[in-house]
């Protein structure tokens, strides 16, 4: 008790954002719990209340019977956290800390039902202020088709001056940002679920750095926060809140991107779903959205129309050599779903050597993408 009071007295000079940062460092501290803690308290008072270890009525209202264990855990964790040290480390790392109500705080998040009390940012914070933003989200386990659509969407949006908002995950998210970066134009906005010093997934490190350079990386998690399962759906509400339109490119029947859709609908953001083959597990979630009445994205321009912008520039001309025979037949037989050599052999009646060499030619000339023995058409 006495020590908690001492901390308050000693750290009185710390700004509210500093206390909030310390509070966010506590284990399992989500936006609702933090909101409950801050109910009728200043952030500094909330910290003192946590240090006291008393079960708090406002928290109990959110978490129910587990409040005793949770506040106990917080109090234990708080003993190892020095708010001043955390605050100076955050500033020294070059992070921009934007508290709810600051001028730099994204205006679209001000009236959010669950606004982030603090956002940590690196890069061009003003990127959030571009006139329109579109979230491009989808599964990490995507097909070549999904990746192509995401890349194309990202490029078209960025070229039209629309900022692409995404989660920097493997698969669709990364592809959308890669497309946006390649096109130039509007700065990309990456909203991640880890601390800004923890690159996750590590495979996207290069993309992560490029987004931070060309645009902005935002997170709710303080420095040093590793990937936690609950943080990803929580992060998705920020993506939905930032976007004017949410596009789901590919989603499995139960996918994280469906959380983004839910959050978008809660916030009255229009959602577009990209139709996919009915056999493709990676499109089950999106096709289901369509069945439920979600408008489809049938052409890249659809999203620009939804934003009230005119169509994008035409696609660059196809430089690939047009396939001869029998390559054209093989290409047509492949359809747009991942296909094996055996399946192709069933569909086109060619001797094995002719089929196998035709497939290799199509891969080399860029018509096919080969992934572990599965061939997918490239648009």
């Amino acid at each position: 008790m006495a020590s908690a009071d001492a901390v308050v007295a000693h750290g009185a000079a710390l700004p509210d954002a500093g206390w909030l940062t310390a509070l966010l460092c506590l284990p399992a501290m989500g936006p609702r719990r933090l909101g409950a803690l801050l109910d009728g308290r200043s952030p500094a008072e909330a910290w003192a209340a946590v240090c006291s270890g008393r079960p708090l009525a406002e928290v109990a209202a959110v978490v129910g019977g587990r409040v005793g264990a949770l506040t106990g855990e917080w109090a234990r964790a708080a003993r190892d956290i020095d708010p001043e040290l955390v605050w100076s480390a955050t500033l020294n790392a070059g992070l921009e800390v934007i508290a709810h109500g600051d001028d730099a705080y994204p205006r679209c998040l001000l009236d959010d039902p669950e606004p982030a009390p603090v956002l940590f940012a690196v890069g061009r914070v003003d990127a959030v202020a571009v006139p329109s933003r579109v979230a491009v989200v989808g599964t990490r386990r995507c097909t070549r088709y999904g990746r192509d659509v995401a890349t194309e969407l990202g490029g078209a949006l960025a070229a039209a001056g629309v900022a692409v908002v995404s989660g920097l995950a493997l698969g669709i998210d990364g592809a959308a940002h890669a497309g946006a970066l390649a096109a130039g134009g509007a700065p990309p906005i990456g909203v991640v679920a880890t601390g800004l010093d923890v690159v996750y997934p590590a495979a996207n490190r290069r993309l992560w750095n490029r987004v931070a350079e060309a645009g902005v990386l935002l997170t709710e998690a303080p420095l040093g926060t590793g990937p936690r399962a609950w943080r990803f759906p929580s992060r998705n509400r920020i993506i939905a809140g930032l976007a004017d339109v949410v596009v789901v490119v590919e989603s499995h029947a139960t996918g994280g991107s469906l959380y983004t859709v839910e959050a978008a609908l809660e916030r009255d953001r229009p959602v577009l779903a990209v139709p996919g083959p009915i056999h493709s597990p990676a499109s089950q979630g999106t096709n289901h959205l369509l069945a439920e009445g979600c408008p489809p994205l049938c052409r890249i321009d659809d999203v620009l129309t939804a934003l009230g912008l005119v169509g994008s520039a035409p696609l660059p001309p196809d430089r690939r050599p047009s396939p001869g025979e029998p390559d054209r037949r093989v290409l047509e037989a492949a359809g747009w779903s991942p296909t094996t050599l055996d399946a192709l052999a069933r569909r086109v009646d060619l001797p094995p050597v002719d089929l196998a060499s035709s497939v290799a030619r199509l891969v080399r000339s860029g018509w096919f993408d080969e992934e572990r023995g599965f061939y997918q058409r490239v648009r």
Partner: protein
Amino acid sequence: MLASVHAATLLGVRGHPVRVEVHVDNGLPTFNVVGLPDASCKEARDRVRAALVSSGLAWPSRRITVNLAPTGVPKAGAVLDLPMAVGLLVACGEVEPASIEDIAFLGELGLDGSVRPIPGALPLVDAIEASIVVVAPGNADEARLVTPIVVRPIPDLRTLVLALRGEEPWPEAGTSIVESVAFDEPDLVDVRGQRMARFALEVSAAGAHHILLIGPPGAGKSMLARRLPGLLPDLTGEQALEVSRIRSAAGEALPTGGLFRRPPWRSPHHGASAAALVGGGSAAMRPGEISLAHGGVLFLDELGEFAPKVLDALRQPLEDGTVQISRVAGSADYPARVLLVAAMNPCPCGGSGAPGGCRCPEHVRLKYLRRVSGPLLDRFDLRIEVDRPEPVELLGDRAGERSSAVAERVAAARERARARGVTANVELDATALTAAAPLSPEATRLLEATLHAGRLSARGLHRIRTVALTIADLTGRDGPIGPDLVDTALSLRIDPFRPAGHGIR
């Protein structure tokens, strides 16, 4: 008082000549065996004693010493029971020393005096230093494969003594009483659909290229693999002898009246230890699965489930075609030239492995695949994705080609390889390959582009060229290797490690 008998012992897959020396002297009645006997050799004392007594022969209550020379070679198994008993009979004066001068004895004794067959008769008889050999009737056929040795099958000790004394003639050499199980090779005609997989199998058999089949459970990977031995040509005379010797040493009965003429098939379970796979393990240094599959097919099902250490132990034998096992007791070389066929699932969940088609997160899938090390993966010239056949194909009555038709093409391709001085194309080195199969200018350009794209290593390049040559042999094409053959070889060598989402640049 002293006797010396010809015999042999098995070390690994090779026989070594042994002299069994028996000395009977006055003193306290004891029976000692010296000269590196293993446990079953030492137990011979009790068997020999009981066998002699049961056969109505006298047991000398004197000091008996048995020496197994040369003393440096470890002796294993019960094969020395019979020579010890004969030595005792000679040392006690029951049998004349002159009557056993040029005869070797190999056999295990039963307590009733019967002579029992022993494993490894072929390599054992091969090693003896006498012109006549006495074996159990069950070993007679196998022993007869070694010419010009005279084989005398003997059912029991009593008959042997009478024959050695000249009181009765040697028993007639009857036929083998051991039934050998004929291995029925399954036929490719049972495989429905799978056109590319069948083709890859044919290429594998023609060029002796190791093949990796990746596919979901139920795709028919094992079914395909089982049909590979049926595509291979018969073993040559020398190979047949070698294969028979190894399998005889492992205790397998040889086919009735002959050698193993068909390539062997071995499929060890994925729980196998490194010693079980490459050999060794005990002082007797048993041959491992890779040697038992010598000249034939070694099938590793569920490759990802084998311990990584065990798989890596296979790398050197696969490269060299022999295994050298070194133990404290000595070392031995086993032939181990196999055609390796492996099968694995594309991911731990058992899904199809199609991009976007399974529930496994990328890192879980990669972790599963990485149990197979890169260098081992590199040994597979052919790596294909096997798909589940469609119901129409399973139920349709359009049967595939018979194994015999495919085997004919394989034999013709092997014939072309023999003209290059090798049994199969896989044995060609870089110089021989360039001489046998120069690349057409277009094929050279194509390979250069693939190398520049980083999709091929130097070793991979050699393998691709070899596979292209095998395909040319199969399709009966002559002249320089064209781009379509190189392309086909490239298509038959997928990279399962390639992470998804690599398209992001």
